[in-house]
């Protein structure tokens, strides 16, 4: 990425108000996505990947969220400090988002037509008739058969996969520059998953938009993304191009993740896991947040918070001992 990225998240720290005060959900997160690029963000539940993604459009509940530090650079603007009115023009117009659960992400009491037409009328100022025609086109574009009739249905009459297609139609309605897909296939059947991913890939090419794909599925990332950000316990632990990450994972956590993917060619009796659990965000860990689970932890890992270090060729990892040793142990 020689030229300026389309969007870059810099040193983002997000805090949520808990029972015992403010808790850091993500801390010092950096990543960037270039024009037309697909960036994968992987991590297990609680790693902060969704929190980071929702922060881009400031979609967290305002009353108990604090963006304690950082900036989200988009063009010459910082989305975190943009006034509400200007932010609304970006939301759905230039940056769109689809979510994990299509069952609950559509409004049950409004028709599909109403929900797709809303961003068209809001951002492009289309008339009702024009917006409706465009909405039918969009439904055809996401391969919903009988679109001109389906458009007047309510969401409960559609299957999960169809609803996610509708969500995608809403998201791409205004031909956004960036689509953030927060675990778009997690709630769907495996067969539907691949259809949805295929659809996203086609739309990405057609519209020429960038995609940030959040997932816990390394397979999806390998198929879909050009670059990956691996998150653990609210921090970025590694970022690299997809081939580099799978060939030469630098961080022990990434390595553990890749090992945990079962190989279908072998007869496996026991799945490989990473021992232990992700730490609670309210827990304070002096050194590396992965150190309690890391087999290779040395003394400095327990006391000093590690920095994200450049290992060359755009490959960064938050594991100084590994990088000093030249990568693979």
């Amino acid at each position, binding site marked *: 990425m020689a030229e300026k990225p389309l969007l870059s998240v810099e040193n983002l720290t997000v805090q949520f108000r808990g029972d015992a005060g403010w808790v850091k959900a993500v801390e010092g997160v950096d990543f960037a996505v270039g024009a037309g690029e697909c960036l994968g963000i992987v991590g297990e539940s609680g790693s902060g990947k969704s929190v980071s993604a*929702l922060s881009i*459009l400031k*979609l967290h509940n305002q*009353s108990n969220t604090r963006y304690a530090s950082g900036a989200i650079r988009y063009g010459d603007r910082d989305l975190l400090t943009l006034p*509400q009115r200007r932010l*609304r*023009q*970006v*939301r*759905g*117009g230039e940056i*769109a*988002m689809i*979510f994990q*659960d299509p069952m*609950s*992400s*559509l*409004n*049950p*009491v*409004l028709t599909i037509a109403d929900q797709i037409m*809303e*961003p068209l009328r*809001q*951002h492009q100022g289309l008339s009702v008739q024009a917006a409706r025609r465009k909405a039918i086109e969009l439904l055809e574009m996401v391969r919903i058969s009988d679109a001109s009739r389906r458009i007047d249905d*309510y969401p*409960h009459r559609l299957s999960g996969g169809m609803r996610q297609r509708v*969500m995608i139609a*809403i998201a791409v309605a205004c031909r956004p520059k960036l689509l953030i897909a927060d675990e778009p296939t997690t709630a769907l059947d495996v067969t539907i998953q691949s259809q949805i991913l295929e659809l996203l890939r086609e739309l990405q090419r057609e519209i020429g938009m960038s995609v940030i794909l959040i997932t816990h599925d390394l397979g999806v990332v390998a198929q879909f993304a050009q670059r990956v950000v691996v998150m653990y316990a609210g921090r970025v632990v590694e970022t690299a191009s997809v081939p580099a990450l799978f060939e030469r994972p630098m961080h022990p956590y990434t390595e553990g993740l890749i090992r945990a993917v079962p190989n279908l060619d072998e007869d496996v009796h026991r799945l490989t896991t990473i021992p232990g659990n992700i730490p609670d965000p309210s827990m304070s860990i002096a050194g590396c947040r992965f150190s309690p689970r890391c087999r290779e932890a040395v003394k400095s890992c327990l006391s000093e918070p590690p920095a994200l270090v450049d290992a060359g060729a755009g490959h960064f990892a938050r594991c100084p001992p590994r990088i000093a040793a030249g990568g693979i142990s």
Partner: protein
Amino acid sequence: MFRAIIVRLMQSIPVLLLVAVLSFILMHLLPGDPAVVIAGADATPAAVERIRRELGLDQPIWEQLLSWFLGLAQGKFGSSLVLNQTVLSAVAERLPVTLSLAALSLTITLPIGITLGILAAYFRSSWIDAGVMMIALIGVSVPSFWIAILSVILFSVTLGWVPSSGYAPLLTAGPGPWFASLIQPAMVLSLFQIGFLARMTRSAMLDVLDQDFIRTARAKGVSEWRTVGKHGFRNALVAVVTVSGIILSLLIGGSVVVEQVFALPGIGRLVVQGIMARDYPLIQGTMLLFGFAFVLINVAVDIIYTLVDPRVRYD
């Protein structure tokens, strides 16, 4: 849909029968004797006995119940024992007062209660929320007779804006006096209902505003106003309709206290009068009519559900 409404109305028949039997039994369980009331304090035992026989109150209780039911089957609600009027005409005479009061009170309650509830939910745990909940708490917990008396002192006695009591019929007295005679009692009644409705709207909205589709609306760039008003409130509407139905049911029953304080000749006062005089047919008749009104309101609420939530269907 039409079939479903018919079925619902048919299903309410056993309910109404139960209401009739219960109101009959309860009235006869109460101590007191209408014959004594009618005959007066100085009457001889023989005179009381004669009146009792004339009214058929000397018959065994199940025979009285049976003959009342036979009358009902023919559409007769009987005559009041003390009012020199049939039950139906007594109710018909007072119903416009109560309905006027109910309509006016509901017109005040709905916009204010809903707005306050939405504001409290949207600005949850802020001073706005606290303020609205304080108003709601006062509304539901301060007795209405006390509010009524304070209101009369201020608006009728001190300021002289509206009459302190009495009712001016819409058709004979005209809309101005009619409105003036009802606005004060309607507002006193509304204070309780606004509190009730605001609380229920708030909790329904709190549920809705946490839903994923609200986040979707924001992600689309929809304004906060439309997100809350259209995406949020449309989903909270089922709860609001339910509560409005309950409020309307309460209002149709007549507010005993408010009608008493403002001397409004409505259903509430009629029922109190009937109970005081042990006027069995009057009370039984009005109870049955109330039961019927409740059933109708509930059916109406069920129909409105299908309009506000496309997932609700009765077929």
